[in-house]
């Protein structure tokens, strides 16, 4: 299976993602934001970081970059697009995903492990995943998911909510919501569920000794579903 990771000026999780994808068997290519096209891929990843220094709004400048037209075409033709953290912010700014990631409710940059609950398995990302509560890492200043009531209703009605913040037992309460996100939302799909944006970083949880392996479950499972 082939994947491509798009690098923007200011991306900083691109190499971690490259390592993770290769570890689980993807043949990965790194693609620069100024390139015209993306090599034939089964998966495109928009990695975490601070594209264009988070100028204007997080992800807003990247959402108008040269390469993004190819990403949008790929996504609209049903290709799998995964946006992690800043990648999620870029996906909302392109309009491929609804809503926006606002500044964290308590104004602090959050860098810690969290638990998230898998809310929908009827998709290539989470179908057959072995655990429903995953321990993943977050590191962001703008992760407070917000959308209009109408958009929220659509997300709920179409089962587009992918993962929510919860405690280790799976309880999605205020206490386990790190950033004030609407309904504890940590990640969402588009309607066709080929596009996934989420704040937590699975690529940071792929080593038994350094972190934990719930990110490995995510990548192994994704590869198995392709």
């Amino acid at each position: 299976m082939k994947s491509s990771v798009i690098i923007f000026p200011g991306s900083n999780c691109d190499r971690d993602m490259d390592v993770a994808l290769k570890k689980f068997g993807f043949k990965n290519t790194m693609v620069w934001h100024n390139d015209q096209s993306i090599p034939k891929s089964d998966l495109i990843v928009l990695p975490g970081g601070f594209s264009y220094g988070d100028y204007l709004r997080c992800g807003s400048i990247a959402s108008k970059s040269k390469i993004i037209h190819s990403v949008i075409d790929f996504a609209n033709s049903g290709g799998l697009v995964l946006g992690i953290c800043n990648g999620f912010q870029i996906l909302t700014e392109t309009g491929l995903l609804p809503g926006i990631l606002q500044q964290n409710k308590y104004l602090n940059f959050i860098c810690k492990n969290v638990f998230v609950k898998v809310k929908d398995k009827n998709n290539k990302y989470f179908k057959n995943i072995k655990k429903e509560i995953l321990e993943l890492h977050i590191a962001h200043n703008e992760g407070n998911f917000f959308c209009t009531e109408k958009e929220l209703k659509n997300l709920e009605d179409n089962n587009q909510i992918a993962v929510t913040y919860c405690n280790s037992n799976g309880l999605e309460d205020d206490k386990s919501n790190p950033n004030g996100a609407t309904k504890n939302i940590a990640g969402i799909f588009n309607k066709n569920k080929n596009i996934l944006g989420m704040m937590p970083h699975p690529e940071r949880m792929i080593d038994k000794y350094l972190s934990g392996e719930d990110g490995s479950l995510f990548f192994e499972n994704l590869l198995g579903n392709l």
Partner: protein
Amino acid sequence: MKIKVIVTLKNGVLDPQGKAIQQTLNGMNFLNVEDVRQGKFFEISVNENDEKNAKLQVEEMCKKLLANLVIEDYKII
């Protein structure tokens, strides 16, 4: 021609920075400050002589890039 734009958060959208500024002002003894909303100001120089035309273009810029209409409103002044 210079066109000025103000982008603000829509009413009802949480503005934690504005809240922090308000609390700081209260702490500085500006006790009658009840609310602060923070926004962005843009000054755009457009090579255009017709003001109406320039403003129409800036409106497009606001919709496409300068404001995110999910949470923000813009005002061309």
